[in-house]
């Protein structure tokens, strides 16, 4: 793709999420879509993190743990220390980065299913910890998290206090989508820069990578750190959008879903997690009408998709180009 076509693509995408979608919602009156799309945007950020760990050749089923950590950090900072929501977004991310460095140093040595299973266990450990620790409030969780306040710079209000808004969901939609655009822009840049190539070298052969002088331990930690940062950011905003966090807010199922989002979109494509999240989340919600058959149809569709497109939805374009 030429640079021009990329720019046009970006412009179309930005126009779609910031203008066309709100307009469509206004026309159709389906205000509930704001919440759905906010969720999709936030979950796709966490999925992008998982994708990053896939990119260095690790199957990461621990993203639920970092999303939950991020959610609790935000909730605790806001309700107990009165920190502004806007600060808790990066702070939650950074907390998760620190946690991921401590956890990652030993477990990133594991490969294949071992890493997958340990990261799955990590999700469960975090849930159990949030039940057991005094600061997280046990099974009752933390509720009544206030809405975000205003952002002012030099006395000019850039973002109004969410509590004064008629429909804060619209505001949350813009916040989530902006974060998603930033996250994916960064990921795109990362993957297409030299760092991406080095990560790719790690994915393909760690021994060879270290023979050319790549510090593989260091690089694995960077990738896992980025992944966890995105997980934490996603979780922190989620806690504020739903104004609550429980030990069950992010569980093993969510960790598995993040992974599925990546698979479904396609592991070879940066925007795979976004498309995968959108498809899975919407697919699931659309199937709500089918009542008790929801899970059956959903899982059958997933199996069929897997049989037809084992390399993800985005591999469709690739096949056509080749053929």
């Amino acid at each position: 793709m030429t640079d021009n076509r990329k720019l046009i693509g970006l412009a179309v995408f930005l126009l779609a999420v910031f203008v066309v979608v709100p307009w469509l919602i206004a026309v159709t009156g389906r205000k509930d879509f704001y919440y759905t799309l906010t969720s999709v945007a936030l979950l796709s950020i966490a999925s992008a993190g998982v994708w990053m760990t896939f990119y260095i050749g690790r199957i990461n089923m621990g993203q639920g743990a970092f999303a939950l950590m991020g959610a609790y950090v935000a909730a605790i900072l806001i309700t107990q220390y009165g920190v502004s929501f806007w600060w808790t977004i990066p702070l939650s991310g950074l907390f998760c980065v620190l946690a991921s460095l401590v956890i990652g140093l030993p477990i990133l040595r594991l490969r294949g299913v071992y890493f997958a299973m340990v990261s799955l266990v990590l999700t469960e450990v975090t849930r159990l910890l949030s039940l057991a620790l005094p600061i997280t409030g046990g099974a009752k969780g933390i509720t009544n998290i206030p809405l975000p306040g205003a952002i002012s710079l030099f006395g000019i209000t850039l973002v109004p206090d969410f509590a004064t808004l008629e429909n804060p969901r619209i505001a949350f939609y813009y916040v989530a989508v902006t974060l998603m655009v930033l996250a994916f822009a960064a990921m795109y840049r990362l993957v297409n820069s030299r760092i991406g190539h080095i990560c790719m070298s790690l994915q393909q052969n760690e021994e060879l990578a270290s023979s050319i002088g790549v510090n593989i331990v260091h690089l694995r930690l960077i990738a896992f750190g980025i992944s966890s940062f995105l997980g934490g950011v996603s979780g922190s905003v989620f806690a504020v959008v739903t104004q609550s966090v429980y030990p069950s807010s992010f569980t093993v199922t969510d960790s598995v879903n993040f992974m599925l989002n990546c698979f479904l979109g396609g592991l070879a494509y940066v925007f795979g997690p976004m498309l995968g999240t959108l498809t899975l989340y919407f697919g699931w919600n659309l199937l709500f009408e089918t009542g008790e058959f929801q899970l059956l149809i959903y899982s059958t569709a997933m199996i069929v998709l897997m049989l037809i497109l084992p390399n993800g939805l985005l591999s469709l374009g690739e096949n056509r180009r080749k053929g």
Partner: protein
Amino acid sequence: MEQVIANGLYLGTQYALIALGLTLIFGLMNVLNFAHGQMYVLGGFVTYTIYGQLGLPFPVAVLASGITLAVIGGLMERYLFRTVIRRSHREESTMLLAAATAFFFDAVILLIFGEKQRGVPKIVKGVFNHFGVILPYDRIVVAVIAGLMILAFILFMKYTRTGRAMRALAQDRVAAQLMGIKVDRYTMIGFALGAMLAGVVGGLLVSITGVNSGIGGPISVKAFLMIMIGGAGVAGGAIAGGFILGMMESVGLTVLREYGDVTYLVIFGALMVFLAIRPNGLMGKPWG
């Protein structure tokens, strides 16, 4: 103390059997079968239907559980996993397939059997109460059957043609193929056998703990733990892992009772430390 050990052994035999099925499938085709717990639940419901509802003898019901799951497992390998493995660029794709089949089984189980906890009449009445150990007889019977099955499995893998072919396959797929082993056929048999083990344990245990549609996922996670402890893809590791987890659970439930529900938190924590030191478990081969 004796009681704790007895409970641990009882849990260990069933856990080892579950882990054996999972590790067999993993060893043969590098697939982490997320649906293993759901297979266990399906086995439970087959026994529940035949023994609990239709009133046929318990052994017939357990046998039916095994056969049903063997057929399901064989079909899954033949029509799902084989296709995806052949067509996918990355072998992790099988994990998505395994997760999707787990959801699928969850849905089917929920539709057919509903959400309620189901139990069946006891197979043996009475309680063993000697040497400071209190254990209902039915638990002893189940543990003995499970123990015999572990033994049978080991002998089968060691001395039969099929067993030896599968071990060769697990060790080196390419070499096995060169030696003239029908790789596709034995992979399918292996998957069926692994599924059968899950089904049989599910059938056996329905007589003690009953069964409900929600326990598939947690059972899978426990099975993952066991094969991580022992080392994935190695039968000895699965058995060791099963008994270790059974023991830890039994000890944990006694010792840590006063601290609330933290047994699994402690087990998970210990496991992560253990794996950091021994990344391939007790006896696993280096992976990847």
